[in-house]
């Protein structure tokens, strides 16, 4: 593994873009670190890697990374990525999205991209809120919590991101947190190596908006909470449902072989070119 200095030098647009725009202590930077170590570990050539994001705090990540990078519109990163992947099947494409980006405005593209099982590695940075716009409730804000648009407490159920990706047909699904960054990095690596749609949920609560509004303390306190409130899937299976309330379950939810979209399409091309039925 390359040293941190080398990683910074190799993968970050370090000369101009740092320090980054994220709040002090924001976990998005930690996810970014995990990504570059994963890419480095796997020995990918940078000219083989593209990163596509939507809009949000998490959406700002591509600016900092020396890949092919594209900061698209709010919610649609996966659709842009689908087009790019079909045009360039040889690229490794990482899609970084916030929870709002991926599941509120982008929810439809999320479920359809998973259904198509196209070879993309999607990372949802779940901070339980709309960070960029200042703390409104998102589809992953837990019930009863406060948000600027839920001043009386959120009354909506939250999406189980991993279960959703699974039911739609994703090939690889896993969840970890920024506290467990090495575990997270491992999942990202597995996702990148998986032929098919891989979804990794990275839990990283926003302390600036969600944390402040709900009086959850500093970035340090919230980092500690990730450690204390999370549990592995194996351990979770042994617990009664009541005790699982409010716990973050980490682990791999799916890892299966499903025919991949660009490969299936390649077969169509072959069939059409050999005069097959149209």
């Amino acid at each position, binding site marked *: 593994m390359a040293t941190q200095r080398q990683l910074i030098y190799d993968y970050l647009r370090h000369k*101009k*873009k740092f320090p980054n725009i994220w709040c002090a202590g924001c976990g998005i930077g930690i996810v970014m670190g995990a990504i570059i170590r994963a890419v480095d570990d796997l020995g990918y050539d*940078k*000219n083989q890697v*593209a990163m*596509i994001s939507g*809009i949000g705090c998490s959406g700002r990540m*591509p*600016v900092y990374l*020396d*890949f*092919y*990078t*594209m*900061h*698209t*519109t709010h919610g*649609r990163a996966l*659709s*842009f*990525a*689908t*087009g*790019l*992947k*079909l*045009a*360039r099947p*040889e*690229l490794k494409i990482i899609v970084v999205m916030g929870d709002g980006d991926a599941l509120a405005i982008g929810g*439809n*593209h999320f479920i*359809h991209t998973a259904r198509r099982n196209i070879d993309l590695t999607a990372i949802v940075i779940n901070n339980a809120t709309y960070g960029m716009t200042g703390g409104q409730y998102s589809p992953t804000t837990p019930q009863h919590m406060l948000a600027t648009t839920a001043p009386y407490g959120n009354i909506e159920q939250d999406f189980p991101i991993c279960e959703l990706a699974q039911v739609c047909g994703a090939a690889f699904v896993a969840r970890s947190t920024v506290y467990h960054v090495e575990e997270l990095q491992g999942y990202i690596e597995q996702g990148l190596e998986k032929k098919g749609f891989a979804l990794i949920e990275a839990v990283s609560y926003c302390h600036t908006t969600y944390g402040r509004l709900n009086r959850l303390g500093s970035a340090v306190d919230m980092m500690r909470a990730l450690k204390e409130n999370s549990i592995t899937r194996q351990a979770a299976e042994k617990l009664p449902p009541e005790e699982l309330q409010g716990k973050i379950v980490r682990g791999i939810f799916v890892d299966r072989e499903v025919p991949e979209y660009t490969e299936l*399409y390649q077969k*169509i*091309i072959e*069939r*059409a*070119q050999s005069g097959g039925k*149209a």
Partner: protein
Amino acid sequence: MRTAFLQGNEACAYGALAAGCRFFAGYPITPSTTIAETMARELPKVGGVFIQMEDEIASLAAVLGASVGGLKAMTATSGPGFSLMQEHIGYAVMAEIPCVIVDVQRLGPSTGQPTSPSQGDVMQARWGTHGDHPIIALSPTSVRECFDLTVTAFNLSEKYRTPVILLMDAVVGHMREKVSLPAPEELEVIDRARPNVPPEWYFPYEETASDVPPMANFGDGFRYHITGLMHDRAGFPTQRLDEINAWLTRIFRKIDAHVDDIAITEAINVEHARTLVIAYGCTARAAKEAVYMCRRHRVGLLILKTLWPFPKDQVLVAAHEAQRVVVPEMNMGQIALEVERLVGRSKVRRVRRADGEMITPQEIRAAIEYKE
């Protein structure tokens, strides 16, 4: 040269293929669907990719992603889908990504009358997305032109790194005509300029003599950044007024300074015409019929193939001696607004109809011959 009896929509699809289009993403909608269906069948034969997306928003997004990956890419839709695509049209302008968006206009607003033709989206093509932006929009009058102008749309889009809108209508799109399609070698096909500098020197949004910076495709070793935010010449977000202004003026200049290249019109008997008819799309065919009906009078016809940027000079020249300018449109008067702005409101007579029927030659003739 290949003679065939084709639908306008099919001709559009074949035009795209001839222009080098290798990616289509779309969502079905009457009366555009046969374009998608033709592409679904034909693209794999040439190694291209067709994908039906979950909606029109995703369709244009996928088109832009594919274009960034280096494929010429297109989508086709009609009014409701075109409305949904507006955000991404702005993104394409901002990020300077070539692509072709076909809108086979049907009667609106809203669901309207899906099988009836209309020219109701002309101003939307110009102004539908938020914020200031230039746009190119073309409009064919025949099946052959569906082919030709699709090729032109791709050429302009690649040449100017910009989305180009092909405004068809349900008449032209569903009409069948005998056409002779040009052989590949007879066609001029333009590809985007690619950088000829090493990646370290490449600035994707640089000022250049042509106002259009070369475009590197993702995957080709030029690792640059694309964003919908205001950006500097390297593509990174900026808040500096000088950089924002430089971008904004360049993006307008690259179109405005090349109107001569972009604005396509067909002029019939316009010299010394005392009455000028200005028409486009299927209505231009009615206008042609009408103008030939009134041959005793000094009646000229200017057919606009390019609607945006508006062919200002051609209109001013053609209207030079005209005392009356008749503008028939299958809408409540959209291009007429622009004509009025140029030649003066008092001269313009609109012939408008927005109920799904074509304007007849007789209706145009009546406007030509009308005595105030």
